[in-house]
Structure formats: structure tokens, C-alpha cells
């Protein structure tokens, strides 16, 4: 603290330099501003004139003050002023250990915590302490390093969606290095086994400060479905003041957009640590909810993901035999009803009435024949994803259903009559179930000996039978078979749904089997048997801040771990899938209680510090810079040079404006006002100049001979310029020109696709044929490889280029090679009887490739003189003329496309009109 202000200095001795300010004052004052030398003939009239006022001989006081303040600001800035400096306690160790809990409970305050840790690091940096940071939730090797190194790594530390394990704490206590160090423990405020032990160990090594801000932590327990209502519960570790909490139910609305489907308000009583509320939601809406979340909590613990538990399937129960009134226990549906009603919506009625409600499952208990209309509707429903579960019975056994050939709604063919074992009239014992094979949906369920089957229908041994059996008796006869039909499936229990033929419906196994078939949706009993032997794949996982992310790349988790193991890196909270079942693992589970942390006596527990020390030196130095900039203006003002400076400033400002954009715009405007031919810059000045002169010559020729009146040609830089402004680009090839970037190639391809044309000129037709026989040819191949160029052919005799303006047969430039390539005509183009040309109507060739060095033949200077000789004598002049004609044809072709080609039809049209 200095003079009561909360300001300290990192290097206070630098302030001694302020003593030098008065000396500086004297020196500066003695130096007048330098005069300007001006050439002025009128000086002859000035000779002998005396200055009346000599005040400006010395620097004006205000300028001096400005400079003095600027220099003072520099000195103060270099001295490292710090706002709110932290007093350094006596007896500080030279090492500092920062322990972060890093659990989900800290996520709500994470930015503040990080700011605080950063402040700690700054302090340690100033004090020269070595620092180690340990995130207990995400432990790494302990290493004491410079604070600055840790500061750079700090943004990578993020809260984890679990709590530290007590193992980590124990291990940390055991691996701590020798020697004294101070510790700052930023804790989440929740109880953790081993906390006190570690705190004791740390207190022995040095000063232990615990910083805790867990009072506001809220945890959301999974909602419970009871009697048509959802019970929502929220916990907090410490009771305190009364508090309202808002809970949002997120899900997809009918249009598929994620939104908040419902909000509920909970109130914590002043002395309560748990609040609850009930909400009734329609089943449709409930089924849409994907997660509950405490509004604006931002932690993984404040999110409760919902899975199948909230969804209740609609199951249609249909029995064939309703004539035995009063015998409830013999009703084929009695046991099913008992098993299903607690956790599914059961529909009963005639099949024709139930199907339009689109149930998830249809159970047919001993129904053999269906009305043809119903059967077709049922097949359609199964194929659309329905699950049909059939139970056998006397009717099925007696009917001829699926006897001679496989019925679509039966998984297997049945033998006539079925069989009966262990009855009064048969040999043998009733059969028990064989253990479920791996691959069966029932794998992992324990088979009870009490389940005995005394009668069943028997499947015909078909080739497909083995793959369709999901449960069998000990003698190998199928008990449950299944087949896929469309997107749905058909399951047949070869016994009755009541206890007539077997003890299966009486056993707990029956319910478990229904569950495994995803008939039961409520998975409230996460018992061992249900989860045994299953592997669950993460679908979406939560991070510490309560955000969902994709979990498909994470390894699967066994069912046992999923229900019972504590959360860790290998078991993240989130949604897990096993086949058709979806299970959520939340941070808090039923029965969890948030408890406040307990610390050993003598450990000081603080809240998060709010005012971090702030380094002001940057501000002082910036102020000094601003003052010095002002000094420049003021000095100019004093010496009478401000006008020039003002101009310079304006120019500077103009330069700093987004000028290139403007330049682009003006160029675009000027280049689109008239037709402008473009040539691609190669980087070789001679070639570029020649290309420019060539296009200039061509433009002049066009101007005089055609109605195309081009402007000055443009040099096009493929990387920066817009290509779309130019109807045609001339691209001379040099072996050394740079290969365009990927973006430039993308632009070129867009240009070619949208109707632009590029004239490639290898300029070597005098020495090389077309191909890779010359350096230029090879360069062209490399340059053009990424371009979207169609198949090529040598210009055919009837190409439209031969007649767009002049009638031409050759396309000479400075050289006279016939190797000029254009886009190949379609293979089906044919010569119509009596027509001079083939019927080629579509497309302007996107490229023309040749080596005749056209630009050299076209090149002319501003006065219209040809720059380079072509050929010899009059023949040469004729060749140059033909080169110009080729250029004219080319530009007309580019501008008018296949117009001249269309003329092919004129005779035919006239003929048809009867002219």
C-alpha cells in the first residue's frame, strides 16, 4: 500500500528515475525546435528583417509538461504498479501447491475459480515461487514449475463430471515430494473420503489455505414416475436460506427442434437440504423429454438425463378365447396383464380397433386365424416396426397355421398337434429350460429349475430354424423363436401365456424375458439379473459443465459397472444403449445425498477472493505512448509544420482504412464497365508485359473491327483478384511460375464452370509439339491437373471457332502449329445430310490449349506498332493478320457462345417455313 492507495510496485527502485525529471526539464527547455529549410526566391526581400518575437526559441511550458508526464508515465509503468497487491505473508515457502477438486460441483463457479487461480499464479510469479497444480478429478504427475508455465496451461484445465476418487487423494498424500511447500486447496465443498487425511498431511508441510465455494451447489436427482406424476427432487449440501430453483424439461418438440418443454419451480425451505415437486405431464409430452436441468446451474450434477424409464409403451393384449368367463386364472391374458400393467399402458379390445392406435407391442395369446383384412393390417404394422408377440395354445396347436408353409406372422413352421411331456398320458418328465445361449436376448438371465414345460407346439426343423431360436428346452426343442419382418419382428412363445402348459408365466423369469424383449419399458429395477452380461455403448455423455457431447467413440461399459461403479473417466455420466434399450447414468442417483465437506480443525476455509491484483504497468505505458503521440503533434504545431503532418495523418488514416477492398471495388467497377480481357500474372515480368501488350493489341483490333470495344486489359493475380469479371483469361506458361493455392484453384474451377474461358499458351510451338515434350508443356500439365477440364481434342474443321467472325482454318500466333486443343465434341455429334457442319450446339469450350505464342503476335505498343516480328516479309504480316483474326474469333466465341453454331439450323428452318 502506498499513501493509503491499494497500489504496490514490483520494482520500486525504478521510481528513483523520477528524480531525473527536473534535469530533463532543463535539457528539453534549452533545445528549441529545429528550423525548416525552405527554398524561397523572395528571400531577397527578407534580408535585414529582424524577428520581433523570440519566445518560440524555447520549448513552450505546456509541451515540456506533456513530455515530462509522458516520461514519468514510462518510469512508473516500468516500475510495475499493481492494483490491490496481496500482502506477502511472513514465512512463505518457496513452493506452492494448488489443488483443485475439479469436480462437477465446481463447474458453476469455474470462471471465478480460474481467475482466482490465475491471481494465485501471478502472486507466486512475483514472489518467485515454484508452483504445481493438481486437478484431483483428472490427476496427473505432480511437477513444480515456473508459475508462468502453469499460467499458459491453465485454460486447458476444465471441470470433470465426476468427483475425485478417494484413491486419488490417498495416492497424492503418498507421492508428495519432500520439503516444505504451501498449499492452496480450491475445493468443491462436498464431502469426500480421505479429505481430512490429505489436509493433515498438507498442513504438516506448510500453510494450508482451503478455498471453498460450494454453498450454491445444487444436485438434481433422477425424476421418479409415480401414479402418473413425475417427482422431481433437488438437493443441496448445506441448508441455509430459503431458495427457489427452476427446473426445465428439455426435449424435441413435434417439429424436431430442441426446446424447453416444461418448467417447474421448486422451493428449498430455509432449513432443508432437499426440495421436491411433482408435475403431471401427458404421456406424449413425457416421452419427448430428453433431460431435466436446473436452470442456469451449468453443472453436470444439475442435469438428469431421462431414458426409457419415462416412456411407457402401449401394449395391445388380444386373446382368442374369451368363452371361459369367470375362470380368471385360466384366462390367457391374466399373467400378461399382471406383468405389464405396472409399467406399460395396456390396451385391450379387438385387433381391428386397437391397431389404429398404433401400439408399440401387440400380444396375441393363442390366436390362430385372423380376418384377412386384420392380417394384412397387422403385417403392415409389423413391417413398419411393430413388435408382435404370439403365445401358442390349444387353438394354435389345432389349427393348420403355418403348417405347410411359413406364415408371415409366424417365425417358424409348426408340426401338427404339438407335444406333451410328463403328463399323465406320456412318458418323461416335464422339461426345464436350457441356459440361454450367447447371442440370445435373454443371455445372462439365470434359468430357474422351477420353470417346467409340460406341453408345447413344436417347430418344423427348417434350415432357418436354428437362427430363429432364442430360448430352448434342455432337450433342444425351441421354446421361444423370433424372426424379423420388415423393420419389426415376430416372437413366438411355444407355450401358453397362462400356466396351462408351463410354469413359465408364474416365474419371475417371465417378466425378465418380457423386459429383455423390450416389451417392458419401465426399467426401474436396475437389478443384477437385468444387467448381467450386457455391454452398454455410450451414446451421449455429459461434460463437467452439463453439456452433452457425442459418446460413440468411447468404449462400452458392462451392465454391472453402469449401475454400480462410481463415475470416472471410464464411466462418464450420459446415455447408454444396448440394442433397443436406452439407459441413463446420471451424476446423482436415487439415494445419493449431497453432504458438506468436513475439514480438520485448524484449517482455514475461505471463500473465493474477489479482487485479484491487477498489473497497471500496461496502462501506464499505453498512456505514455499516447502522450508521446500527442507530443509529436504538439511539436509540429510549435514549429509550424502541422499542416504537412495533418496531410500525412490523413494519408495515414486513408491507408489504414480497408483500402484494398475499396480498390477491389473500383477495379471491379472499371473492369465491368466494358469488356476487359485478362491475363494471368506469371511472375516473369517480360512474359507478363508481353501478355499485356498482346491483349492490348487484340483489344485494339477488336475495337476497330468489331462491335466489341474492350478496355485496357487487366493483369489478374489468381490469388487475390476476382476472376468472374473477365470473360477470357490468357495464361502464358513459364516453367518457373508459382503453382496457385488450393483457394485459387477453387476459384479457377468455379470460373471455368460458370462460363469462363482460359487460353493456355505454352509459347513453344516452334520447338515442341503439344504434350510433355517441353518444360512449358510439363509445367502446363502440373498447373492444369487440379483444374476441372473436360476431355480435349484438336480443333476439328467444323469447330465454331473457325467461323465466329472470320472464316479460319488455322490459328497461328507467332508460331504456326496446328496443335490447338479444345473441349472434345460429344461422341454422338453427327453430320446431317447436306449440312456443312456437325450439329454441335452446346457449350463454349472452357479451355483452349496451344503453344503458338499468340500474345507475341498480337502485341502492340500504344502507337499501334507491332512489338515483335512475325515470320518474314509479307507472309509474316499475313500470319500476324491471321493471328489477329484468330483472336477476334476467340473473343467473339467467348462472348456469343454457340451462336454461330446455331446458324447450322437456318437452312432447315427456312426449309420448314416453306421459303
Amino acid at each position: 500500500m502506498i499513501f493509503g492507495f491499494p497500489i504496490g510496485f514490483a520494482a520500486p527502485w525504478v521510481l528513483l528515475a523520477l528524480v531525473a525529471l527536473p534535469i530533463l526539464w532543463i535539457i528539453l527547455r534549452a533545445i528549441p525546435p529545429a528550423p525548416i529549410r525552405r527554398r524561397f526566391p523572395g528571400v531577397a526581400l527578407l534580408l535585414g528583417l529582424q524577428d520581433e518575437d523570440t519566445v518560440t526559441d524555447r520549448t513552450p511550458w505546456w509541451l515540456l509538461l506533456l513530455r515530462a508526464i509522458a516520461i514519468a508515465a514510462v518510469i512508473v509503468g516500468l516500475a510495475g504498479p499493481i492494483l490491490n497487491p496481496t500482502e506477502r505473508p511472513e514465512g512463505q515457502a518457496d513452493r506452492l501447491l494448488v489443488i483443485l477438486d475439479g469436480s462437477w460441483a465446481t463447474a458453476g463457479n469455474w470462471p471465478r475459480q480460474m481467475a482466482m487461480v490465475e491471481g494465485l499464479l501471478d502472486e507466486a510469479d512475483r514472489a518467485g515461487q515454484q508452483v504445481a497444480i493438481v486437478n484431483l478429478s483428472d490427476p496427473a504427475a505432480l511437477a513444480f514449475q515456473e508459475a508462468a508455465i502453469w499460467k499458459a496451461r491453465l485454460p486447458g484445465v476444465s471441470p470433470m463430471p465426476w468427483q475425485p476418487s478417494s484413491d486419488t487423494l490417498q495416492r497424492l498424500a503418498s507421492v508428495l515430494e519432500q520439503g516444505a511447500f504451501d498449499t492452496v486447496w480450491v475445493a468443491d465443498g462436498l464431502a469426500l473420503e480421505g479429505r481430512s487425511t490429505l489436509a493433515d498431511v498438507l498442513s504438516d508441510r506448510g500453510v494450508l489455505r482451503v478455498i471453498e465455494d460450494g454453498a450454491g451447489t445444487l444436485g438434481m436427482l433422477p425424476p421418479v414416475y409415480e401414479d402418473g406424476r413425475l417427482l422431481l427432487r433437488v438437493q443441496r449440501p448445506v441448508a441455509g436460506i430459503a431458495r427457489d430453483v427452476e427446473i426445465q424439461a428439455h426435449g424435441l418438440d413435434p417439429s424436431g427442434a430442441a426446446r424447453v418443454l416444461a418448467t417447474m419451480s421448486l422451493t428449498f425451505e430455509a432449513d432443508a437440504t432437499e426440495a421436491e415437486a411433482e408435475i403431471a405431464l401427458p404421456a406424449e409430452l413425457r416421452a419427448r423429454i430428453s433431460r431435466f436441468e436446473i436452470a442456469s446451474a451449468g453443472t453436470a450434477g444439475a442435469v438428469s438425463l431421462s431414458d426409457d424409464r419415462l416412456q411407457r409403451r402401449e401394449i395391445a393384449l388380444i386373446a382368442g378365447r374369451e368363452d371361459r368367463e369367470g375362470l380368471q386364472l385360466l384366462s390367457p391374458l391374466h399373467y400378461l396383464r399382471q406383468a405389464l400393467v405396472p409399467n406399460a399402458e395396456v390396451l385391450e379390445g379387438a385387433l381391428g380397433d386397437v391397431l389404429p392406435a398404433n401400439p408399440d407391442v401387440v400380444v396375441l395369446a393363442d390366436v390362430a386365424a385372423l380376418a384377412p383384412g386384420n392380417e394384412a393390417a397387422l403385417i403392415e404394422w409389423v413391417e413398419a416396426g411393430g413388435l408382435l408377440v404370439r403365445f401358442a395354445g390349444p387353438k394354435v396347436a389345432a389349427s393348420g397355421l403355418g403348417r405347410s408353409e411359413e406364415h408371415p406372422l409366424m417365425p417358424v413352421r409348426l408340426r401338427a398337434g404339438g407335444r406333451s411331456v410328463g403328463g399323465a398320458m406320456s412318458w418323461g418328465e416335464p422339461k426345464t429350460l436350457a441356459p440361454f445361449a450367447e447371442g440370445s436376448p435373454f443371455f445372462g438371465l439365470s434359468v430357474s429349475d422351477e420353470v417346467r414345460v409340460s406341453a408345447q407346439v413344436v417347430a418344423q426343423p427348417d434350415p432357418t430354424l436354428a437362427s430363429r431360436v432364442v430360448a430352448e428346452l434342455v432337450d433342444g426343442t425351441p421354446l421361444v423363436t423370433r424372426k424379423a419382418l420388415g423393420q419389426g419382428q415376430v416372437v413366438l412363445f411355444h407355450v401358453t401365456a397362462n400356466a396351462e402348459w408351463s410354469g413359465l408365466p408364474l416365474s419371475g423369469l417371465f417378466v425378465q424375458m418380457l423386459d429383455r424383449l423390450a416389451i417392458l419399458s419401465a426399467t426401474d429395477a436396475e437389478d443384477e439379473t437385468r444387467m448381467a452380461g450386457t455391454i452398454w455403448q455410450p451414446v451421449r455423455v455429459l461434460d463437467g459443465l452439463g453439456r452433452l457431447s457425442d459418446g460413440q467413440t468411447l468404449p462400452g461399459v458392462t451392465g454391472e459397472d453402469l449401475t454400480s461403479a462410481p463415475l470416472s473417466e471410464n464411466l462418464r455420466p450420459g446415455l447408454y444403449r444396448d440394442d433397443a434399450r436406452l439407459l441413463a447414468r446420471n451424476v446423482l442417483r436415487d439415494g445419493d445425498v449431497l453432504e458438506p465437506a468436513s475439514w480438520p480443525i485448524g484449517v482455514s476455509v475461505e471463500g473465493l477472493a474477489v479482487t485479484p491484483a491487477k498489473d497497471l504497468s500496461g496502462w501506464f505505458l499505453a498512456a505514455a505512448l499516447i502522450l508521446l503521440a500527442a507530443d509529436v503533434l504538439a511539436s509540429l504545431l510549435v514549429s509550424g509544420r502541422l499542416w504537412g503532418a495533418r496531410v500525412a495523418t490523413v494519408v495515414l488514416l486513408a491507408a489504414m482504412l480497408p483500402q484494398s477492398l475499396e480498390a477491389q471495388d473500383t477495379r471491379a467497377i472499371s473492369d465491368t464497365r466494358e469488356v476487359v480481357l485478362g491475363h494471368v500474372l506469371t511472375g516473369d515480368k517480360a512474359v507478363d508485359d508481353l501478355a499485356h501488350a498482346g491483349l492490348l493489341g487484340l483489344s485494339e483490333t477488336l475495337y476497330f473491327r468489331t462491335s466489341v470495344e474492350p478496355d485496357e486489359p487487366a493483369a489478374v493475380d489468381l490469388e487475390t483478384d476476382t476472376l468472374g469479371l473477365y470473360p477470357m483469361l490468357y495464361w502464358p506458361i513459364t516453367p518457373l511460375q508459382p503453382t496457385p493455392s488450393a483457394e485459387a484453384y477453387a476459384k479457377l474451377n468455379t470460373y471455368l464452370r460458370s462460363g469462363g474461358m482460359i487460353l493456355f499458351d505454352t509459347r513453344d510451338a516452334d520447338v515442341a509439339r503439344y504434350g510433355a515434350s517441353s518444360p512449358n508443356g510439363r509445367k502446363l500439365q502440373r498447373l492444369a491437373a487440379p483444374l476441372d477440364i473436360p476431355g480435349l481434342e484438336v480443333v476439328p474443321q467444323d469447330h465454331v471457332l473457325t467461323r465466329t467472325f472470320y472464316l479460319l482454318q488455322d490459328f497461328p500466333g507467332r508460331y504456326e502449329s496446328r496443335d490447338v486443343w479444345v473441349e472434345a465434341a460429344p461422341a454422338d455429334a453427327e453430320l446431317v445430310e447436306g449440312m456443312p457442319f456437325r450439329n454441335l450446339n452446346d457449350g463454349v469450350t472452357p479451355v483452349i490449349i496451344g503453344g503458338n505464342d499468340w500474345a507475341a503476335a498480337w502485341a502492340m505498343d500504344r502507337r499501334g506498332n507491332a512489338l515483335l516480328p512475325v515470320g518474314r516479309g509479307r507472309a509474316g504480316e499475313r500470319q500476324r493478320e491471321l493471328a489477329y483474326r484468330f483472336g477476334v474469333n476467340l473473343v467473339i466465341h467467348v462472348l456469343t457462345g454457340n451462336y454461330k453454331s446455331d446458324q447450322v439450323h437456318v437452312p432447315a428452318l427456312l426449309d420448314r417455313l416453306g421459303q
Partner: protein
Amino acid sequence: MNTAPNLRTRAETEAARLPPLLARAEHLAGTVLLGEHGRRRAGLGDDFWQYRPVQPGDSRRLIDWRRSAKSDQQFIRQREWQVAQSVMLWVDQSASMRFTSDKDGATKADRARVLALSLSILLIRAGERVGLSGSSLPPRRGEAQILRLTEMLQSDEAEDYGAPEARAMLPHARAVFVSDFLGDFEAVEAALYKAADRDVRGVVYQVLDPAEESFPFQGRAIFESMGGSVSHETRKASDLKTRYLDRLAERRDQLQHLCRVTGWQFGHHDTAKSAQAALLWLYRAMERRQ
């Protein structure tokens, strides 16, 4: 042989400088509508002046028979007296004339040359003989003289301030002195007196830069002449402004007084203003009868 191409190159370089000045001068001269430049009395000349009755003493060869046949009297056809006058030009070529305050604007020398050459073109087209004062280019007639003048006018001189050349003045000729007249005043005085002694009349034309007219300087500065031979340091240039302008006005008064005494005319021109107005003024001043 090396010399021929070399000579040709140099000649072309030299010739390249001619057309712009000449073209500008021609262009400027074209703006002045050329009237008859006769003496407004009968005498030797090409143009018809009047018919007058024959008087005793007239030679019979002078009788215009075609006119006389129309009446009983005999007439003599008189032509207008057309005397070619000699005009001597002096254009200051010194370093001070090469000053301009505006980077893109014309220097004083440039303006002075254009004006002088345009005036020459007008005068030569009117049949006068134009030359340079001194012995370098005596007055002659004809278009070729315009080219010679153009060439002579383009030679820069190194000295800081120029003094009028009054040697070898033809008696009774006319003269035009174009300069900024910021240099030694006594030299100007001497030259004008010398010219007046030979009955040479003419125009003193002062061409100044706008900066020299307004003195828009501030702050600490060292003023130097174009050649650097004269310099003056000031700490507050703005203070000097009024006194400088006073001195400039005084110099102008002196020139005007000198002209009045010697029968010359005095005009001044600012290079920021139109050259055409200046040329018109000069042309009118040359036409004025003595």
C-alpha cells in the same frame, strides 16, 4: 561510325523538348484573335488602304487604271503602310524563376517562357521581327524564327537572380522584359535607362508565384534562395509576413515609377492565374501606340 547515331539521339532528345513548349505557346497564341496589324495609314504594304485622286507629283505608274476608268478622275491605289517592327525579348532564365510553391503547378520560368513564346508567335504572324535582347538571337521574321526562339528560351542559367540584358538594342525597337524582378533593382534600372536612351519602349512584366505574393509561412524557418547564395533565418515566419508584403509592394512601386519615367509599361502576373489573360494584356500592351 559512332557519331551519327549519337548526334541523332541527342538531336532527338533536344527536339523532344521543343514541341511541348511550342505547342503550348501556339495553343495560347491561338486564343488571341489576330487583327490587322497595319499602321492605319497609307504607305508600303500588301493590303489595300484607299483610292485617292491623283495629285501633282504622282508618278503615272501609280495610277490605278481599272478604278480610274470608272470615272473621269484618275485615282491612285494606296496600300496600307506596313512596317515591320523589331521586338526584343528578355526572359529571365535564372534559378529564382524555377521556383514553384505548388508541386504540380507551373514554375515561374515555365509561365514566363510560354507567355514570351506565345507573344512571339503572335508578333511574327503579324509580320513583326522578333528576337532576343543581347546578341544571341537578333530579330528576324518568319516561322523558322519561332523554332529558334523556342530553343533559345529553354536554356536555364545557374545564377540566382537575373538582370535584364540591354546590350545591342536596336534603336526605336520595342522590348519585353519578363522576370520576377526580385533581384538587384539597380541592374533593372540601368538596363531600362540604357534602353530608353536608344528610344526603345516596351513592357516590364513581373511574374510571381502565389507563395511570393502571400508569404504563407509559419514557425521557425531558414529561407534560402534557389541557388542557395542568399539565406535568412527567422524564428517566427508569420511575423515577417506584413513586412515582406510591404517590401514587395515597395519593389513594385519602384518598378512602376521607373517605367513611368522611361515610358515603358508595367504589368504583373501570378502563376496561379490564367496565362491567357496575361497574354492578352501583353499583346494589348505591345499594340498600344507610343
